[in-house]
């Protein structure tokens, strides 16, 4: 249960945030920021926190599970990668990150701001996509920015355009699902997610996301692990 780690990472952050260090938490909730924000707020999280609804990051970094940890140094180089089971309550994981932080590091000059306006990110993505119209990755990035800017109908059309060219794009299918969810079309969202799950059956993120949308009562406010075990047994029989 990833969300139980949030208060532990907050404590870690308070201990180390003067060491030229930031935590960027990214939730993979296809349902959107609201469902994730409940948990960061409850945990009193003060580090930057974001959501990757259409799972562009999962596509870019290639991971089929959460929780994951990636440590990036001052030059933008990956120094640590743990995919699956990364845990603030696991001493080995915490020690690995603290070892990286023990190296001296100088704070960059002040004034660096990580947050950019939504509309600016949309404009940048749109320009890139229109400059290279055949590049499907750029088109999906643009469509994801459209969703964030609540232009869901437009986003839906862009994801569909990608799917017309590449019907097996799981990222486009998950993206399509995010626009349908925002448009209040839950059945269509689930259909797109199931299609994505069939194309990528080992992807646990999509699989569990479908469960959470179909059966929110088994995940919120409390996660029911027994229900999940039962569900797996049933799916195994099919």
């Amino acid at each position: 249960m990833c969300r139980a780690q949030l208060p532990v990472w907050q404590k870690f952050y308070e201990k180390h945030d003067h060491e030229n260090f930031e935590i960027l938490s990214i939730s993979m909730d296809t349902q959107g920021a609201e469902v994730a924000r409940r948990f960061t707020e409850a945990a009193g999280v003060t580090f930057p926190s974001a959501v990757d609804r259409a799972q562009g990051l999962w596509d870019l970094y290639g991971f089929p599970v959460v929780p994951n940890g990636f440590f990036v140094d001052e030059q933008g180089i990956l120094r640590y990668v743990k995919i699956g089971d990364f845990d603030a309550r696991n001493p080995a994981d915490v020690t690995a990150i603290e070892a990286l932080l023990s190296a001296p590091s100088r704070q960059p000059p002040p004034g660096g701001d990580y947050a950019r306006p939504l509309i600016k990110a949309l404009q940048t993505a749109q320009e890139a996509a229109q400059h290279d119209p055949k590049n499907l990755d750029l088109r999906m990035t643009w469509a994801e920015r459209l969703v964030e800017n609540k232009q869901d109908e437009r986003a839906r059309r862009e994801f569909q355009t990608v799917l017309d060219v590449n019907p097996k794009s799981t990222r486009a299918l998950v993206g399509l699902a995010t626009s349908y969810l925002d448009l209040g079309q839950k059945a269509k969202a689930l259909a797109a997610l199931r299609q994505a799950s069939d194309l990528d059956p080992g992807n646990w993120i999509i699989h569990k996301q479908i469960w959470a949308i179909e059966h929110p009562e088994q995940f919120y406010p409390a996660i029911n692990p027994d229900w999940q075990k039962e569900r797996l047994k049933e799916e195994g029989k099919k």
Partner: protein
Amino acid sequence: MHKLIPFVLGAMLMGASLPLGWAQKIRVGEPAPDFTVPSLDGKTTYRLSDFRGRRVLIFNWASW
């Protein structure tokens, strides 16, 4: 292969292993691919390359 899936998922539910045939796209020692993600308050975006000059732990999770 399909018969194996419930077992693999079952193992992951307990927090054990990764699925077969899965390919990691990133490596330690290589540049972290850049990305933009919207903040949870829905007002701004974060871009990884904007953190350049700082050390960043990306913690990847989900509410479920």
